[in-house]
């Protein structure tokens, strides 16, 4: 039981820190949130710099072009980049964390060669076409269908909650290839080119007023059969590999950011006098303790997956449950610090408060997570 980094890890951190210190000031200014082409260019540019410096695909296996770093090194990377205020993974998210690892694990040599290098080098953007309007928590009930026509699938349906759809080159798409099979058994995983005829993207406005997500309408889109990763109708298993990657370290940067936010809240409360209110002060103190523990839980989960050879453990659901509720509590507390000012949309934490509302819903609602914890970890029986 140790929290002292090895010399090697300390060196890794020092090198990374030095590189960030020289590199970040050279970056162009961030584009506005509505400037999708600008955001794509910015995020890809950052990825190219990472690639050149040897940090691209840190956690990917060596034979997929990655660096084969330990989970701890990946954790250090995520911690340091967030601390230094480096760009978020942004448009590279799906490529680096979903589609890429899936292709690395399940793709053919040709598929790996075609799709992985452009992701690492910051040349291509991926988006995700999993959820559908009628298949949210029950993802496996998806209805977008793909019918075989010669050497292509003809895909028709609609997808929702797709980030970066407007600027993506590829979409990792789940489609139903066998309507008569049990729902988990008739799904396939396809790489769909976003410029294929029949793909329509419509921005989806969230309650925060932003258009971070889109809806995708697919009307007889032809996707070559060679773009299928994994066997036909084996897409559910293929996808679960991807999703468990997401659970592992997806929130590391955010926990670091939440801890920084708490410091800012303390300063703001001192400045406006509300720090003198013990109710608020103790609430901030409690959150400081909770987010400290969440940081340690991240380290715990990482060291566990390190032992098991990189396979993410079941700790992800436990972490997500604790974290998503703590994050909502954090931004409710931010509103307490601000008082009536929290009603202003341009106040520092208001948009974050709005977006925090999705944390108990997205990527598996808290209700679904509790089912997972109860059934898969605790072994409680499924209901009738």
């Amino acid at each position, binding site marked *: *039981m*140790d*929290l002292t980094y*090895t010399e090697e890890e300390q060196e890794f951190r020092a090198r990374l820190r030095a590189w960030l210190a020289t590199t970040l000031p050279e970056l162009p200014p961030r584009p506005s949130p509505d400037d999708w082409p600008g955001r794509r260019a910015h995020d890809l540019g950052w990825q190219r710099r990472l690639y050149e410096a040897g940090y691209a695909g840190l956690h990917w296996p060596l034979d997929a072009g990655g660096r084969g770093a330990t989970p701890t090194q990946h954790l250090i990377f995520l911690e340091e980049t967030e601390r230094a205020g480096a760009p978020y993974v942004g448009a590279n998210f799906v490529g680096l964390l979903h589609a890429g690892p899936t292709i690395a694990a399940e793709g053919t040599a040709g598929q790996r060669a075609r799709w992985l290098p452009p992701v690492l080098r910051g040349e291509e953007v991926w988006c995700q076409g999993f959820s559908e309007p009628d298949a949210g928590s029950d993802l496996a009930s998806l209805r977008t269908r793909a019918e075989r026509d010669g050497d292509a699938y003809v895909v028709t349906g609609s997808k929702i909650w797709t980030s970066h759809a407007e600027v993506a080159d590829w979409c990792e798409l789940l489609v139903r290839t066998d309507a008569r099979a049990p729902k988990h058994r008739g799904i396939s995983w396809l790489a769909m080119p976003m410029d294929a005829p029949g793909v329509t993207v419509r921005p989806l406005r969230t309650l925060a007023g932003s258009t971070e997500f889109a809806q995708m309408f697919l009307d007889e889109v032809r996707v070559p059969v060679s773009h299928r990763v994994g066997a036909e109708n084996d897409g559910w298993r293929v996808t679960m590999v991807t999703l468990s990657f997401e659970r592992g370290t997806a929130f590391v940067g955010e926990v670091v950011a939440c801890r920084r936010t708490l410091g800012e809240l303390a300063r703001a409360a001192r400045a406006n006098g509300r720090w003198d209110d013990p109710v608020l002060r103790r609430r901030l103190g409690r959150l400081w*303790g*909770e987010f*400290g523990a969440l940081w340690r839980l991240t*380290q715990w989960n990482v060291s566990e997956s390190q032992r098991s050879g990189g396979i993410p453990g079941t700790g992800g659901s436990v972490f997500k449950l604790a974290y998503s509720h703590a994050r909502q509590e954090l931004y409710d507390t931010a509103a307490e610090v601000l008082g009536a000012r929290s009603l202003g949309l341009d106040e520092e934490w208001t948009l974050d408060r709005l977006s925090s509302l999705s944390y108990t819903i997205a990527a598996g609602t808290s209700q679904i997570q509790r089912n997972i914890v*109860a059934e898969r970890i605790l072994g*409680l029986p499924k209901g009738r």
Partner: protein
Amino acid sequence: MRAVDFQPTEDQRALRAGVRDLLEGRYGREVLRADLDGGAGIDRAVWRELGRAGFFALRLAEAGGGVGLGLPEAALVFEEAGRVLLPGPLVATHLAAGTVPGAAEGEAVVTALDLGDGLVTHLDDADAVLGLPGTPPRGEPVRSADPMTPLHRVAGCGPDLSAYRETGALLTAALQTGSALRTVELAVRYAGEREQFGQPVGAFQAVKHLCAGMLVRAEVARTAVYAAAVTADGAEIAAAKLLADGAAVGNARDCLQVHGGMGFTWESDVHLHLKRAWLRAEQWRTAAEAEELLAADLMGSAR
């Protein structure tokens, strides 16, 4: 490749397994219930056996007859004691090892004025009080809500315990974590066995989600305790105590709810976990103190 590893080492796992075996053998459920029915005295034989196993001398240097281990090992061991509801001033005696003669070996029972309002546990059994020279002071007996932890009230102000407070809080948090993990197990077992409306109650989402919430509380607290044991940082210890108190009390409450009427009976062990958790929450560091300490640490970090 070598890497930082927060997980327990092989040695630590072996230590934990050994203590678990010892406690299950010497302090299984029958002993617990017999203790409960027979009055709340400390079994000196068990105490000595704990001493022989190094429970109290764990962190003393080997040169001084101790085991030479550290806080992380102590946290693991105390977690096991918390699981089985082992009674007695375990933390105080552990803290007294090396200072009070016989404490390290389990020959002496040492209590501490670690509660507010002049309350002290197990005074009748105590050979010494931490930080007080000589024999223990007299106290007025107070009927205790925890039937296995007798209480007395002593007059006057106690000794300065600041040198012991953080370690005391941490080891108490470890006891709480053990209790919190145990009540998850009790709830899950009962939910899997008890049938209502034609299925195990654990198949109902409401019960399932109570259990899931319990595990989340316990796992977060456990991680906080282990981290605080490794770093020995004051704020991390405060967080560990705060979260472990919440996990032990909250889990005992939810465990009782899962047990329904059966949990409300004296025969169930659930109430023993709850009452002990309430007691420990008042020891060494209360929630209000921990929150204020964490707030001060936050402000310090925000400068």
